[in-house]
């Protein structure tokens, strides 16, 4: 991990021997383990072992394998996907406030999902029964992909993907998406309205292995792809012209990053609803811990994003059983203050 790129001295000093990544990895493993063993239903070590050996009773094994494990897996996919997408967008646009929501991917995914919820009964009947449960994630995914394709072809047509153009197109797409969702809400019946509200709160309690595996496969593919973009993102920080002279094909790199971001965000939004905040905070925290070099920020952001989502989910599951508040509440409550605390600490040291 210790690269030969010129790191700021402070970060380089702290990365010597990279115990940081060992610590972040350990933290993520601990949270993931807690996600599996803790919950409103108390399972003893004996239960857990029995389930692992395939001899568990129906109740405990359903709780572990059908409720907690899919949540943990989906949580990791959501955390990795959102953190890396945010990280890559911030890098490409050289804007610390950039977010997948910016180019309208999240909004596109939301339109897809909302369309399925509201218009579903017109075509659900024609779908084979086993496919029906996946219509919602598929709709969200298609919506996210369509928007990305549209925004990019638009900005390419203007001769090169210019950042301002991209952001403006994103603004337009967000506005159109808002109008489409408004129209859907208008024609929905009260049952659908309640489904909409439920989906828009965000949750990783999808519990459906099929859906979890599709989402995870897509998010992980995008995650692995984004993890290799460290050098390009570092060069992007010098400005596009300098990056071009440093020998990277900036158009191609931007396309790759955008496509992977769209895949990750589309898949994640489909499965878990619009969970905000992680794409913005995980990269920031990572930069505070490992410095600005993307080859370090990317993996650190992924580990932090995963830990944040699982921590938030654990918090909502344990807070007020037998009920469960929406996860978005916890991501803000855990992430917000912690992020502020980190900022304050940096401020005191005068190194913000």
């Amino acid at each position, binding site marked *: 991990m210790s690269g030969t790129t010129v790191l700021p001295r402070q970060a380089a000093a702290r990365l010597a021997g990279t115990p940081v990544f060992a610590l972040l990895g350990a933290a993520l493993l601990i949270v993931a383990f807690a996600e599996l063993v803790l*919950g*409103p*239903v*108390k399972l003893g070590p004996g239960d857990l072992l029995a389930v692992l050996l395939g001899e568990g009773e*129906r*109740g405990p094994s*359903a*709780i572990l394998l*059908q*409720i*907690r494990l899919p949540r943990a897996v989906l949580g990791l996919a959501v955390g990795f996907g959102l953190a890396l997408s945010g990280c890559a967008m911030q890098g490409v646009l050289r804007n610390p406030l950039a977010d997948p929501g910016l180019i309208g991917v999240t909004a596109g995914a939301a339109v897809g999902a909302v369309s399925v919820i509201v218009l579903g009964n017109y075509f659900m009947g024609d779908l084979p029964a086993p496919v029906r*449960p996946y219509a919602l994630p598929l709709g969200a995914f298609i919506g996210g992909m369509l928007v990305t394709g549209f925004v990019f072809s638009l900005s390419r047509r203007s001769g090169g993907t210019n950042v301002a153009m991209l952001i403006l197109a994103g603004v337009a797409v967000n506005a159109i998406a808002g109008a489409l969702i408004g129209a859907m809400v*208008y024609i*929905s*019946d*009260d*049952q659908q*309205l*309640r*489904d909409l509200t*439920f989906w828009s*709160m965000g*949750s990783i*309690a*999808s*519990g*459906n292995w099929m859906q979890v595996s599709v989402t995870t496969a897509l998010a992980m593919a995008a995650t692995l792809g984004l993890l290799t973009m460290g050098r390009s993102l570092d060069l992007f920080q010098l400005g596009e012209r300098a990056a071009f002279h440093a020998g990277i094909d900036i158009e191609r790199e931007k396309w790759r990053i955008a496509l992977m971001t769209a895949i990750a965000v589309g898949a994640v939004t489909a499965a878990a609803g619009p969970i905000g905040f992680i794409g913005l905070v995980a990269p920031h925290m990572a930069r505070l811990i490992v410095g600005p070099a993307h080859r370090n920020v990317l993996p650190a952001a992924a580990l932090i994003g995963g830990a944040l989502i699982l921590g938030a989910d654990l918090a909502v*599951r344990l807070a007020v*059983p*037998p*009920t*469960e508040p*929406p996860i978005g509440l916890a991501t803000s409550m855990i992430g917000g203050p912690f992020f502020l605390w980190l900022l304050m600490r940096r401020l005191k040291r005068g190194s913000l």
Partner: protein
Amino acid sequence: MRRLPSLLLAAALLLVQAAHADSPQRIVSAGGDITEIIYALGAGDRVIAVDSTSNHPAEAASKEQIGYIRRLAAEGILSLQPDLLIAAHDAGPPAAVEQLRAAGLRVELAPKGDTPDGVLGKVRFVGKALGMDAEAEALAGRIETDLSKAIETAKSYTDSPRVIFVLSERDGAPLVAGAETSADAIIALAGAANAAEGFSGYKPMSQEAIIEAAPDVLLMMSQTVERLGGIDAMLARPDFSLTPAGKERRYVAMEGMFLLGFGPRAPEAVRSLATALRGG
């Protein structure tokens, strides 16, 4: 012949077991109407937890709380070690219901019902799920008699006031009940007319459409009125103030589950609404 006693004993044991399987003792109930029916059947002591829409009878409110009926948390419910989840037709999310079934919990979803027959259907359904068919039949009979009397009485009024039911106010547009809503159904049973015509479900209604509809009475849930800080906020709106209801300050506020639940209190709801709409 000597084996007969042991055979009889075995049969008796089987019967006892079957009876126990059909009469759950740790019930989680989701849906205010379903909870009311369980209590009306006299099985309230078997309920261990209810959802947030179960606010009647008062004892139900003291049970463990599982949250909103459409946002059930599977593991939270399992942690209560229930032997039955009985819920209204719209309980969800579907994934949570699937997970509960996968964990071996018996889940019974009631049929939809905001008609007189629907009420009876729900009562019989709960009776079947709780192994109390006879009690349910008796209760359904009582409700049926009472409900038809209430509907007859409501029909005998000579006037048919035009009513608008406002569910909530979002972004300044009142969300109004059209056709195919429980509000529309109870208004009709009370011998009145829903002034909101031409759409179904709950829709935001424009100011001009409200003036055009010219309702005689504004109907709302008392919870909504409280949230808005009183009925004046609605009656003073530029649209409602120009309708007969606004000019004469005719409004009715009733507790939501009582008015729209279509449970055992449906006859009472029809009677109170019919009287209240005529200024009684």
